[in-house]
């Protein structure tokens, strides 16, 4: 077995690459950033604003402002850190314009400031989750069951690869080292595992299109 690319340099920051492509005129690259960070931005704003319609508007406004200011992103901080500041400022401005309760706003802002370094575990407790409908909760459970069943059905090599990635949080390079295979194989195995699982849940997700959940 060849381990030729175990020592390959880490790939460049994908966010920086997408910013570069956007600045070069490829708007689709910015759409990738929108897709990637939509949920995080919504959860962040959802902790400051209880109105879900307003969350959506502010999140959209955040991305539009980010797009306008993208030329000022220097790449010396994480893209989300930069986006986070824009989201907080946008939410703050919107709430001030709407003259929302400043006390509630400030307390939520305080908790929101900690979000910059928080992980998905903390984001689970965000305000948006509280607005889930019983339908959405049921759909969520069904999807979770389907994902776990698909995981059990995966071949060992695929299950191991996606487990190391999603649960252990290992990089492709670390997984390649652990499984003693090239990074390209790791990338392929993770993709194949995801494709196999998503084949089961995509119909469920499509039923949710247009619905909040």
């Amino acid at each position: 077995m060849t381990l030729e690319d175990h020592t390959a340099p880490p790939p460049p920051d994908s966010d920086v690459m997408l910013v570069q492509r956007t600045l070069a005129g490829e708007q689709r690259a910015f759409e990738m950033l929108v897709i990637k960070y939509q949920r995080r931005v919504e959860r962040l704003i959802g902790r400051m604003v209880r109105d879900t319609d307003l969350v959506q508007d502010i999140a959209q406004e955040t991305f539009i402002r980010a797009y306008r200011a993208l030329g000022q992103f220097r790449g010396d901080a994480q893209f989300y850190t930069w986006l986070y500041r824009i989201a907080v400022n946008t939410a703050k401005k919107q709430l001030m314009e709407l003259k929302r309760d400043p006390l509630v706003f400030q307390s939520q802002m305080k908790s929101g400031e900690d979000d910059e370094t928080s992980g998905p575990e903390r984001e689970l407790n965000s305000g948006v989750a509280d607005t889930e409908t019983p339908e959405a909760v049921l759909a969520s459970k069904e999807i979770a069951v389907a994902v776990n069943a698909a995981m059990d059905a995966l071949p060992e090599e695929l299950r191991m690869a996606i487990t190391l990635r999603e649960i252990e949080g290992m990089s492709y390079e670390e997984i390649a080292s652990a499984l003693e295979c090239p990074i390209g194989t790791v990338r392929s195995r993770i993709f194949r595992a995801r494709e196999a699982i998503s084949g089961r849940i995509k119909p469920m997700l499509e039923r949710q299109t247009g619905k909040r959940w």
Partner: protein
Amino acid sequence: MNAAQINLNLRSQKEIDLVAPEQAVSALVDGEIDEALLDGLLAADGGRVDVLASWHAYQVIGDVLRNNRVVAGAQAPGDFLAGVRERLRSESAPVPQSARDERLFVKTPAAVLVREPAANDAVFRWKLVAGVASLAAVMAVSWTVLSGAPSGAGGMAGPQLAAAPVPTEAVVPVAVNAATTLSNSVVVNTGQGPLIRDARLEELLAEHRQNGGMSALQMPTGFIRNATYDAAGR
């Protein structure tokens, strides 16, 4: 091997590699995409819903595997993206703040970093002028050193004094020597040879002799003491 595994194995590696955009999405979700995959992803048909659906599915899979539940989102990604896309239509493309900022994004290996050519690099006249100026400077310094240096060891006394360490020998003032004194100067013998000083300064220094670190006129001040009276013999 169960039926699900058989179905999975039916899709060969080669077949999956042909579906480049989805594989690129998978790598992008993990932040592990490279330039080639990103090229393939961006070059894919912009109207494809599959990419967006795949992304959403991969995110949901990650949520379930990590938290055993789907993390809520305010809106389905397709609707949200459609809204953003609609608003972006009226926006002009962003541009880097400056060419300098743009350079920050370029991850250039250290070994490749080279000094940029000067603005006047192509003008030969400047190189000629610089060369002549350098030559003239060297000649001027040489002329000064050679013409000003008398024969014998005394010729380098000045530079030696300047380079000498702090004298350890006490400086002993002598009485005003009428033969060597100018109108208001005195000659002081120091460890490094005779020194001509202003008579009033010498008188002032002698009067302000310090006892126990305290000046006769001032409160104890270490730096004043050093400035006015740094010789042990005073």
